[in-house]
């Protein structure tokens, strides 16, 4: 199967600590349309129906349509698992999403969208070690899959391993070639009317993450300085550093926090590329 991945430039709004749903033990759904027809016809119908519901934000209906495929028509049809997993992610039902990505990986061990996205789901469930394994595996399967570098770097940062995060992000930047794009744009001899240089915004995202990593490192240094100041009488810390540390602390507690999933990149699965 060919794998063409288009990355969603959007970040996910994953809420940590979302309720974990029990495994689906419901009876199979009622799927009467095109009953008796070939599986391909029925599968096409429910994929079309499910995707239309999904695009309209009717996630319960979408999940039912995809369930018709995997529970009634063809339990090996990967696009239905991938689509249903996306649906569950929108519903923040991470447990079910993980189960569907796992099933997709069982059916196609090198399906990078499933591997990466399962990592994102594992991170949402705070299963950071398992998530790291998935991102590592994604990079192993496709070293040019830059989203996994970004996602893995976030996990390094959450573990306080900023050096590893920075190294990985720089590796991703070099591999994606976004650094060369930047150099070309910054070339003082570049003509004002020179044609735009196309690049993937996901690749540029690595610079944002690098900035975050360095900021997090800076906060560590500030905190070391402030910690020392508390150990000795008469050592009054510089107020500017106190202020800078406070501002960074606040940002990492709120809009810049790394553990809410908003920096994770979800891969969009392109079901037209294979099957």
């Amino acid at each position, binding site marked *: 199967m060919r794998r063409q991945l288009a990355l969603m430039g959007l970040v996910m709004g994953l809420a940590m600590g979302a309720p974990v749903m029990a495994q689906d033990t419901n009876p199979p759904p009622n799927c009467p349309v095109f009953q008796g027809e070939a599986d391909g016809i029925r599968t*096409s119908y429910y*994929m079309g129906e499910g995707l*239309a519901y999904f695009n309209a934000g009717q996630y319960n*209906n979408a999940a039912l*349509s995809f369930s018709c495929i995997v529970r009634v028509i063809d339990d090996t049809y990967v696009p239905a698992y991938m689509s249903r997993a996306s649906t569950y992610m929108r519903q923040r039902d991470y447990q079910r999403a993980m189960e569907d990505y796992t099933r997709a990986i069982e059916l196609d061990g090198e399906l990078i969208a499933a591997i990466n996205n399962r990592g994102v789901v594992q991170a949402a469930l705070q299963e950071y070690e398992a998530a790291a394994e998935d991102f590592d595996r994604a990079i192993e399967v496709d070293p040019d899959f830059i989203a996994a570098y970004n996602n893995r770097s976030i996990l390094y940062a959450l573990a306080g391993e900023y050096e590893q995060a920075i190294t990985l992000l720089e590796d991703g930047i070099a591999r994606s070639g976004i650094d060369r794009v930047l150099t070309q744009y910054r070339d003082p001899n570049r003509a004002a009317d020179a044609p735009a240089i196309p690049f993937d915004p996901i690749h540029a995202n690595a610079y944002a993450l690098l900035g975050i990593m360095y900021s997090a490192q800076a906060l560590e240094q500030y905190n070391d300085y402030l910690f020392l100041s508390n150990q000795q009488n008469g050592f009054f810390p510089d107020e500017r550093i106190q202020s800078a540390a406070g501002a960074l602390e606040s940002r990492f507690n709120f809009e810049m926090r790394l553990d809410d999933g908003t920096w994770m990149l979800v891969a969009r699965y*392109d079901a037209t590329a294979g099957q």
Partner: protein
Amino acid sequence: MSRYSRLLLVIMVAIVSGRVMAQEITPTPDPCPTPQISNAAASYYIGLGNALFSRGDFSGAVVAYTCAIEQQPDYAPTYVSRGYAQASLQDNEQAMADYNRAIELDELLTSAYNNRGTLYTRLGNFGLAINDFTLVISLSPEDVTAYHNRAVVHAAEGNYELAIADLEQALAIDADFAPSYAALGAVYSAIAAQQYQQFVELRGDNALLPAGTPIEVLQAVDEGMRTGDYSVWVALQTAAGAE
């Protein structure tokens, strides 16, 4: 035709034709969206269309069904689906063309006759509507929708006894078919309107109804069924020699 009768006719046609959304412009078909799966059959677009229809996006549904028809032009049910979406957009002409095409492709397709019958009803062609519903009943004697729809046409024509017979038959087939209860209520309302009209003709336009206006009576009867208060019926009694 009295005011009550005209009102009832409007209600009947609304019931038989389903809920109709106001749309003035028939959409120009957009290019077919590229399927998001490989080897997509025409049924992909039918699924897309059904989902769009279910959320009231009739224009989008027409486009999706058209894509399915382009891929599989001899599959009659898609014309029925598109016809219904067209009818929901008030495009009666296109809807009729689609139903007719479906019947050309499959002369036993009861859904095409059923929907064409509802369209004929909307257009006031009651005879043709009854023909279509009767044909469905002959092809599929347990088709509750056909009995129901034919009943509504009978009612629209003022043939309330025939309407009641068809509605009772529909409910005999499927006691849970809720629309027939609503239609039955409407038919009895029509009969009520006839009787009130008769009262007015005998007593004159300014005569007071003994138990209040028809709406007041209906409310009182409804409340009486829940509370046991039968005073509305008492009000309808007449002393000997009063007439």
